[in-house]
């Protein structure tokens, strides 16, 4: 039991990210409504982004903005890498978030288009209408 506690403290964040990913994946597979599927996709996406950002975290480090740098105050001061959180995952994920909203917008446009044509967003009803119309149209 005493061995287990450090393991839990060191790893519980990863376990919760995995649970979040599972929620997103479940919504993508099992939900019937297209918009619910989109929400699931976004949850999955944010879980992965969360995982990436947490890789860059260092204990006892500050945010990745150089201190006392305004006006050239810290010229000559040595910057230690261990004092600042790793900025590289932040950069990668920052652009990923903005692209995710762009793709979300396109997905919403597709959903609006599907609703205009078939008057429904439910997957099973959509399948029924497609069978009714037939493969020709």
């Amino acid at each position, binding site marked *: 039991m005493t061995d287990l506690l450090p393991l839990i403290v060191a790893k519980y964040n990863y376990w919760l990210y995995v649970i979040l990913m599972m929620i997103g994946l479940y919504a993508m597979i*099992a939900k019937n409504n297209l918009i619910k599927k989109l929400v699931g996709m976004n949850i999955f996406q944010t879980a992965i982004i969360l995982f990436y950002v947490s890789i*860059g*975290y260092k204990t006892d480090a500050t945010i990745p903005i150089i201190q006392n*740098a305004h006006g050239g105050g810290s010229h000559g001061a040595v910057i230690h890498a261990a004092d600042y959180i790793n*900025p*590289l995952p932040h950069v*990668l994920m920052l652009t990923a978030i903005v692209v995710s909203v762009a793709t979300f*917008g396109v997905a919403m446009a597709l959903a*609006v288009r599907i609703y205009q044509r078939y008057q429904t967003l439910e997957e099973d009803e959509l399948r029924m209408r497609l069978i009714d119309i037939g493969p020709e149209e």
Partner: protein
Amino acid sequence: MKFLGVVIVCLTGALLLYGTGEFPDWGDPNSPASLHLSNDYIEKAFEETQVPNLVTAVLADYRGFDTMFETSVIFCAGLACFLLLRDFSQKKERFYRHIPTGVILHVKNSKKILKVGKEFEHMDKDWVPSDLIIKTVCRIIIPFIQLYALYVVAHGDFSPGGGFQGGVIFGSSLILLAISYDLKTLVNRIKEKVFGIYAAIGVLIYVGIGAICMPMGGNFLDYSKLAPLVPGDPHHIRALGMLGIEIGVGIAVTAVMAIIYINIVSEGRHDEGL
């Protein structure tokens, strides 16, 4: 289907949980991700670029290509929304309010479009935004939101922020105008063509700044070669180059957010919305 979904999800989750056993501890300074390239960035970025915010320095300078194509992706998303939804046919039913008397006119099956001005006011079919409090508050707030967006873009080098965030905030101020008044107000004030042109101009500024570096003797997006073109301290040239591309990104993102919102909310007809 639901049962199968649960089984697949549980299997994937179990595999991922098994995989976490091999990960470094959470917050470990010596994890593999923090050992190689990122230390170079942290120690040398300020000296080389004079930009205190390391995220901006890496985003706009060291990984400039990445950000350029992300901006292109956003531009393409705006284009895709336009192509999917835009519908140029006019709706046959229209509503107008005669302002002096308050009489509401319902025009059916008529090609005639009443001139909107001092006498007549356009009205939406589903939703009539005419609340004085909301209009007044939004009219006061919107300039401050836009000022804040410009601040975020301009201070992206020194504090959290940058082109993406500033552009999104500016775009949301335009969306607020469309929600608090009506969609016609926004579309009449800023034409659809202008949004399209701005989206393209934003990407062009980015690519243009990158391309100017090449005849000056550097690589694509090598801002340090721009020093002869800009008066002032040559040490700050890379920071200025980053500011330039952040402005480009901000313009493109603003325009694309507005395009996506207008097209979705009016189903591409640009006449009435939320």
